[in-house]
């Protein structure tokens, strides 16, 4: 129980709730709405997942299965239609489950497109949450920003605007921004999508460093199955609306299930 970073019990998500939190509307409105019980209208149904502290887990599967939606549920951006979520053993009731509340539990998220604030320089992008939460004196914050930029090797681009950077660099800045907040649980949405092989090979050791040095729990949503092999972590699949048990890469490669036949055929053939 205490070494648990995240536990999801019986999560359901209807298509109607996919839009997510609208900051224009009071959050209680969705709470008092009728519950959708029709399984036909559900994108995700009956998902159970338990992640230990310091563990890295990959969520795979073909696109359009709701992997990113699952990650948005964990980050609190989308409220599940039904189900309970425990962060570090602490239950957050659904009426309080918002992204701000989840972020207080030191959960960070890296978006697929980086989602950097486009009118701030890289340095200020990384410093924004630190300054907002007043995490230390200005000198400490500057030091932290520099550390984060060094870790993700974006120090040379410190005074650039996000639109001047390539996609890979934006992603690295986004990871640096999440890291600077000292997350205990880091959610990554497609960290390697749109990266060439060279950048991808550079990025994976950085994730690995973070995992070993800072004992961060990482959940990676990806369709790049080789990540799980290279990071040596368990992988589970979102298949037919539910999540399979996490298993190592070799298990999926060798077993004879529907998922393995669909997704691992090319990998098997290439050896």
């Amino acid at each position, binding site marked *: 129980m205490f070494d648990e970073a995240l536990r999801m019990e019986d999560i359901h998500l209807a298509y109607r709730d996919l839009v997510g939190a609208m900051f224009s509307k009071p959050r209680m409105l969705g709470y008092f709405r009728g519950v959708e019980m029709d399984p036909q209208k559900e994108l995700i149904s009956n998902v159970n997942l338990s992640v230990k502290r310091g563990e890295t887990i990959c969520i795979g599967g073909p696109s359009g299965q709701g992997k990113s939606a699952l990650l948005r549920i964990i980050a609190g951006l989308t409220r599940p239609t039904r189900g309970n979520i425990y962060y570090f053993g602490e239950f957050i009731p659904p009426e309080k489950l918002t992204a701000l509340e989840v972020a207080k539990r030191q959960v960070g998220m890296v978006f697929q497109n980086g*989602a950097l604030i486009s009118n701030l320089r890289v340095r200020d992008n990384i410093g924004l949450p630190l300054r907002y939460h007043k995490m230390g004196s200005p000198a400490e914050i500057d030091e932290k920003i520099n550390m984060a930029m060094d870790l993700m090797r974006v120090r040379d681009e410190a005074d650039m605007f996000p639109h001047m950077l390539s996609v890979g660099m934006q992603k690295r800045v986004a990871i640096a921004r999440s890291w600077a907040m000292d997350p205990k649980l880091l959610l990554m949405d497609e960290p390697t999508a749109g990266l060439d092989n060279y950048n991808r090979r550079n990025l994976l050791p950085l994730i690995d460093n973070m995992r070993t040095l800072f004992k961060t729990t990482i959940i990676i949503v990806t369709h790049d199955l080789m990540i799980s092999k290279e990071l040596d972590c368990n992988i589970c699949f979102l298949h037919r609306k539910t999540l399979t048990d996490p298993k190592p890469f070799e298990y999926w490669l060798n077993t004879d299930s529907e998922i393995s036949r669909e997704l691992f055929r090319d990998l098997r053939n290439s050896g």
Partner: protein
Amino acid sequence: MRVTARRNWQKFTLPAKAFHLLGLFLLRRTFGQQIALFCRAIASIFSRNRSLKTDSRNIIMQTFFTGVEVFPVLFVVATLFGAITIIEAMSMMGRMGFSDFVGSMIVIVTIRDLGPILTAFLIAGRSGSSLTTYIGSMVINYEVDALATMGVNPIRFLVMPSLIGGCIAMLIMNIFFSASAICAGFLVTKSAIYLAGITGVSADMTNIQLTWSYLSTEILNAIDLSDFIFIIVKPLVFGAIITTNACYQALNIQRDVRQVPKAVSRSVIKSFLYVVVADMVISTFYFVDYMKNLKQLI
């Protein structure tokens, strides 16, 4: 969990249930949600994350963003509008035999009513629309979501500075509007009379006795305390309406780029509507005031 909440709701007593239903009814409407957004923005001023330096910088930047760029257009509009009012007042009132009321006419039209409304329209058209586009594209690019996952409250970070900055800019711009409508409007009228005189359009035009001392005395006689109160209250109310509406429409966009232009047009049009309605509500004060005076006379 959702089920227990519904069960709790069924356990409510009758007045509580009625209150609950009334609240839900209001909050499901756009208007109720906008008022809720306004209240959350005001409440977020006092949140734990406040820091005077960052907040004041954001607010000052927002004030400049709202006010400064609209100023040239506003100055021209105000000057010509003031000139038109002065010319109309001089010509119409004299013909109808109400020459003593020239000052009140100018005060009522420029300072009291149309000044704040025209300023609000200009600011809604220029700053409200750009605010909606700015926040709307942040919503589309998941930047607002990213802010929320970092624990930065978007309402505090985006809505609150624009709300306060918008109110301050609106107040300053309204004072500028009234001042330039009267002062620059007077100069334009004077030069129009002069030009008409020398070009021979109408030689009698030079006979119009329009002097600054006459105009200013008339205006100062006509103005009273309620005007000074309303010149502060009206712009604050209008500024709050415009910025809250703009931010609401922007945050209400549902991940679709085509919704951004729609939200912008909704923001501007609804701001116009709400401003006129609010002006109507505020203006009933004068009506009540008039009725009171009437009773005393009788």
